[in-house]
């Protein structure tokens, strides 16, 4: 088993953990934590694939850097949305926040 396969398997573990968390967590903050896990798996997979194959290594590293920047932007917006929801509903449980009425 090559080193690349091992790194991809670790990234797959991160993806699976995040997917399980997002399906099973019952609060919005918990789901945000799971999304961060999945994004980390993606970054690790991209860097491993670009560093260990003849592919363009600069592109791989910068791509992961952009994934991190997008994750930061996403976390900022999700934080604002969670604050708004907490103010309006008084909780961030997904079972309570299920109405579409304004």
């Amino acid at each position: 088993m090559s080193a690349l396969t091992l790194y991809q398997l670790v990234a797959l573990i991160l993806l699976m953990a995040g997917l399980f968390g997002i399906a099973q967590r019952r609060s919005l903050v918990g789901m945000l934590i799971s999304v961060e896990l999945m994004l980390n798996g993606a970054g690790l997979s991209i860097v491993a694939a670009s560093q260990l194959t003849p592919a363009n290594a600069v592109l791989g590293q910068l791509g992961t850097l952009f994934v991190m920047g997008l994750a930061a932007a996403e976390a900022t917006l999700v934080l604002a949305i969670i604050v708004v929801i907490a103010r309006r509903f008084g909780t961030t449980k997904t079972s309570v926040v299920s109405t579409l009425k304004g």
Partner: protein
Amino acid sequence: MEDMAKIAFGLYTLIILGGSVLAVGAKSLVRAMVGLIATLLGVAGMYMLLNSPFMALMQILIYVGAISVLIFFAIMLTRADAGGEEAESAPLRQNLLSLLAVLSVGGILGWLVLTRPLATTGVPVEVSIEKLGLGLLGPYGLAFELISVVLLVSMAGAVLLAWERRNGK
């Protein structure tokens, strides 16, 4: 040297495994955050092993430094106390269904990864920071500018969303 790398890889894998189990399974959200931070540090170690120290430093700076603090703020602002939000665990049926979904996705992807090995160079490529900087200013300049616009817009959007109107209701 080869053995050291294997030991370090195993150590980081253990850190990532334990951290992600804590991040997904912990009842208290603060403990879940501690697990997430351990996972992020483990991934930073993986970047070090992949001969890309710049990515490892960025991982620690952006994820551990900025994003975890943001999520801690989210936990504090929503007053999710230690035993509150995730205190009652999900019903067994939901857990089993999530496990099934995860295992199907993971099974397919794992099978693909294991049965289609790529031709790899044994040693990670060395990329100097100068090359990364030249890439950011040269061929990938547009993406670099776009991501700064995205960050600016998301910051402005967050301020707009969470703005408490003083003279309102």
